[in-house]
């Protein structure tokens, strides 16, 4: 029995490690390429460990081509959109969780529906709406759309969280004369930290990586966000993969940090809500 167990354990590890290699090698190859100089980009055989390591790609990316600017653009759009989404969705979720009002069910179904409509099919109409508001090429336009794209999911997620908080707490606070707003900010929000964290992570990642909308709504080259900048970077420097991947790695760092710091909330958020990160 123990021997069989050991063999099955060994097999599990073997499979897990093979899977790990399957996932890891492309990443490794990307990192290695970013540290290679141009002469080694298409060398045969391709090396998984470079002959010589150079930081030139990173230096070139950071010093040239407005990269710092794109980074700041992305950060600005993502942070503002995330803050607004958390504020609005938490208030909406609280209303759905605790208040009775006319048409609540219908409105909530509309919220759910918003979650189900695939984002890319909204591309044309959203572009036209932003255009009619004269917000093309502004961060305001992009941020507005990003907030609406996240609102449904996050309201849905937070409603579940708020409903799991026992009402006795709020009733006690009401007896003590606390208003709804006080209850919301002093009781509900502090108790929902994991949920709020999940909302923040998902919204931030969405905004940080969003491609299709940013491509359409921002045409002014200095206002671009990172995903667009990187895609165009590759188009401009066709085979300069070292540069492209150095830029990719720098843009991936914030995501990695968020992921590592919030790893627990992240997996919890995914498995309780079925959200796609």
């Amino acid at each position, binding site marked *: 029995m123990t021997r069989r167990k050991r063999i099955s354990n060994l097999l599990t590890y073997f499979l897990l490690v093979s899977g790990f290699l399957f996932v890891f090698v*492309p990443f490794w190859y990307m990192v290695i390429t970013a540290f290679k100089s141009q002469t080694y980009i298409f060398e045969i055989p391709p090396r998984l460990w470079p002959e010589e390591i150079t930081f030139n790609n990173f230096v070139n990316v950071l010093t040239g081509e407005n990269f710092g600017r794109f980074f700041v653009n992305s950060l600005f759009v993502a942070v503002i959109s995330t803050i607004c989404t958390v504020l609005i969705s938490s208030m909406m979720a609280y209303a759905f969780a605790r208040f009775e009002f006319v048409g609540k069910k219908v409105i909530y179904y509309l919220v759910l529906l918003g979650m189900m409509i*695939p984002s890319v099919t909204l591309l044309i109409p*959203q572009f036209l709406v932003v255009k009619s508001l004269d917000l093309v090429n502004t961060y305001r336009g992009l941020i507005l759309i990003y907030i609406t794209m996240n609102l449904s999911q996050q309201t849905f997620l937070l409603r579940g969280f708020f409903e799991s908080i026992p009402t006795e707490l709020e009733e006690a606070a009401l007896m003590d004369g606390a208003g709804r707003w006080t209850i919301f900010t002093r009781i509900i929000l502090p108790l929902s930290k994991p949920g709020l964290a999940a909302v923040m992570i998902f919204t931030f990642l969405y905004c940080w990586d969003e*491609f299709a909308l940013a491509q359409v709504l921002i045409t002014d080259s200095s206002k671009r966000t990172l995903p667009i900048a990187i895609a165009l970077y590759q188009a401009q420097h066709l085979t300069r993969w070292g540069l492209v991947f150095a830029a990719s790695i720098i843009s991936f760092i914030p995501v990695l940090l968020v992921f590592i710091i919030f790893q627990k909330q992240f997996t919890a958020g995914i498995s309780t809500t079925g959200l796609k990160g």
Partner: protein
Amino acid sequence: MALFIFWPLIYSFRISFFDWNVIRPERSDWVGIANYVNALNHPVLKRAILNTFSYTLITVVGQMLLGVFVAVLLNQKVRGRTFFRVAYYLPVITSWVIVSLLFEYMFNGQGGLVNYLLKDILHITSENIQWMADPILTFVPIDLLGIWKGVGWTAIIVLSGLQTIPGQLYEAAEIDGAGKAARFLKITLPLLKPTLVFLVVVLSIGGLNAYISNSLITDGGNPLDQTHFILTYMYERTFTNLEFGYGAAISSMLTVFVFVFSVLQIKLLQKRNSG
């Protein structure tokens, strides 16, 4: 939200019946269902529909099989579980733009890593394969990327489903002499069914809406407009050729199709939450 999601949707539906003039919308001509007829008769769109459906089929099956497999592995009490879980999740959080470029580089026709593996290490081919020059082979990197990127997410969802199955069930079955395979088929799979159905729906919607990887790897349907997805083609017609009515017609058809899937998804979500 009504302003930014529902009104646009209806607006877009309206546009699809016009030869839409972006600069001066009031000058647009009503063309009835001409945009739909033209789109459906257009060989490039037909090909794009075929491409999208085959991509969806391949990636959904791939993600489901590997996702369940990985989840079962991770559900065992082995050391380093958290490490593997985090590692498998890395592709999920990496941006589509980055991983698309990465796969394009790995499948490069000259000195790419994949060609090297196939030619010089495994000796399967004698020459470098020009992946991006062939309308069928282009989908090897695109489909593999779709699977590679999605397995981690699928596995996490399956894992959370697995963890709700009470261990006593397995113990009882073991006492009754059920083998590992029998336990998996008779206990695990039936109890996972709601989770699996949910996953198939969500992954299918994701597949039908694939856009970035194709747009970057095929560089706009190359070669010869044979490799478009529905959405990359819609994008080209709308924002490159400025045929908004035509694009809106394609987009409306896709939306209706996806909507059928989505109604299913709402139902499943409710079941998941109440169960």
